[in-house]
């Protein structure tokens, strides 16, 4: 009985499976081919072209776009800003999200409610969130300066002072994204067996020593994953920069994607040069991704 059932099943399933596969996959393949695969290749081609978006034609100029990029002072400033944003956001974000996840893992009244609140900034639109923060950062009537004032800090012109704007951006960036990492850390913490902690308690280990010697090492795959994903994310920050500072003041918050946007779409229409910058960004993200894959492989195989 079982045999005939399988035979019949196999004979149906065996017929034209490749053909069905083409049918099932074609919508996805068409969209992907047009809007991902072709663009990736074409972008590479464009980066060796002088391409003007107004005349819609290009000419081959070899490495000139890349040479121009590396010789441009603005490019280095933008790269530096992006790096500062990343260095400023990622560790702070990870510390806060780990602590919050750790706290939520303890006995706590209203745990679910708290988690909801911590996660709320993640789901709202970056545009609206950045508008709220523009108001919070208002130099005269903003809540941020008011709160700092209670502790005796004199008012800061957050968004118009070149020395402060990046901090304002980092502060908002951390607020907007730590809830996401909190969820990932929480999943990682849940995966650590209780028996490890119980054994450590029997050996007389304190809370701090348990955190340091059990939680941190066992959490390291999650931590590494979050580290790389957060870096990939923060290298591409755009929306909140656009609304909060528009890259200013004096270019102090101009980041890579904003730079691409300006060259390609805002005023210059230099698609070739902007593509070269995009590819440079791609290279950075690619290296990060490879590091991620390599690490996970050694973890799994190792």
């Amino acid at each position, binding site marked *: 009985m079982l045999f005939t*059932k*399988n035979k*019949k*099943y196999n004979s149906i399933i065996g017929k034209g*499976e*490749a053909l*069905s*596969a083409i049918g*099932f*996959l074609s*919508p*996805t393949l068409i*969209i*992907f081919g*047009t*809007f991902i695969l*072709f*663009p990736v290749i*074409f*972008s590479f081609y464009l980066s060796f072209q002088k391409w003007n978006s107004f005349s819609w034609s290009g000419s081959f100029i070899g490495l000139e776009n890349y040479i121009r990029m590396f010789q441009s002072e603005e490019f280095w400033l933008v790269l530096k800003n992006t790096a500062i944003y990343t260095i400023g956001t990622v560790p702070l974000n990870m510390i806060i999200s780990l602590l919050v996840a750790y*706290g*939520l893992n303890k006995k*706590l009244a209203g745990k679910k409610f708290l988690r909801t609140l*911590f996660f709320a*900034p993640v*789901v*709202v*639109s970056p*545009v*609206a*969130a950045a*508008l*709220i923060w523009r*108001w*919070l950062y208002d130099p005269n*009537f903003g*809540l941020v300066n*008011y709160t700092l004032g209670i502790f005796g800090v004199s008012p800061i012109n957050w968004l118009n002072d070149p020395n402060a704007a990046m901090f304002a951006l980092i502060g908002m960036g951390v*607020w907007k994204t730590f*809830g996401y990492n909190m*969820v*990932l850390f929480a*999943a990682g913490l849940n995966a650590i067996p209780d028996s490890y902690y119980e054994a450590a308690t029997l050996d007389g280990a304190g809370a701090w020593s348990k955190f340091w010697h059990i939680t941190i090492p066992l959490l390291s795959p999650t931590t590494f994953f*979050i580290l790389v994903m957060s870096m*990939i994310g923060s290298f*591409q920050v*755009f*929306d909140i920069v*656009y*609304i909060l500072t528009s890259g200013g003041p004096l270019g102090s918050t101009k980041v890579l*994607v904003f730079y*691409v*946007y300006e060259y*390609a*779409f805002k005023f210059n229409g230099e698609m070739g040069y902007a593509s070269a910058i*995009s590819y440079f*960004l*791609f290279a950075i*993200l690619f290296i990060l991704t490879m590091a*991620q894959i390599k690490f996970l492989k050694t973890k799994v195989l190792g």
Partner: protein
Amino acid sequence: MIKKNKIYEGISSILIHVVMYALAIATIMPFVWMLLTSVKDMSDIFVYPPKWLPTNFRFRNYVDAFEAAPFGRFYLNSFLVSATVTIGQLITCSMAAYAFARLKFRGRDLLFYIFLGTMMIPANVTMIPTYMVLSWLGWIDSLNSLIVPGLASAFGTFLLRQFFMTIPRELEEAAFIDGASRIQVLVKVIIPLAKPALATLAIFTFMGVFNDFIWALICINSEELKTVQLGLATFRDKYLTQWDLLMAGSVTATLPILIVFFIAQKYFIQGITLSGMKE
């Protein structure tokens, strides 16, 4: 000894509660402040020290905001785009996921790895050529430019494929014996069983598309085609410090997503946890 431990535990528990609740309040404070500002009179907004509660609740700010910019229209556009992309993705991703999970064909695994690889390619990198493709298709300044590129998703395909793999084959076999085609099996057997995964994908996609800004910024020029996010951004340029209107607009743009989130929180959390385990 035991007593001392109890006291220690009690103190640390209180401490954790205090810290966690303080952090939670700080986290949602911006939203509270947005809501309060959105119903304040300008004379209550520009005061120092800040006034928490408005003297009079001025709900007219919302009417003013909707009169200052066609937020109703923006909403309609955003909703249209988000809903179409979400439904489209549910269909294309289910189909592709079924092929990867169940059909045997040459090069399947290689194709699947290429798929996973595209998940790593950030949209910002392909922004320029994608814009060009859209422009060759004549879709710049049309809602098509926001809809069509989103009609397939590597993440969605992956998520559903992983879920489909957990469904026992026996359930399909019975349907095949009854003479069902593959499409029928997918629609009548697999999809009903995969509801949680589909819900997760739907919510994630909807939220992502609804909140998307950069594509609308690049592709849309006409006022009547703007999405909520783009509309809000242009609103900012026009009413720089009119915080009553700006905050009313922000509430309009955040509240629907927040409400969906509060109701369907489970699926948000699931989606993230899954994305974290995609390796």
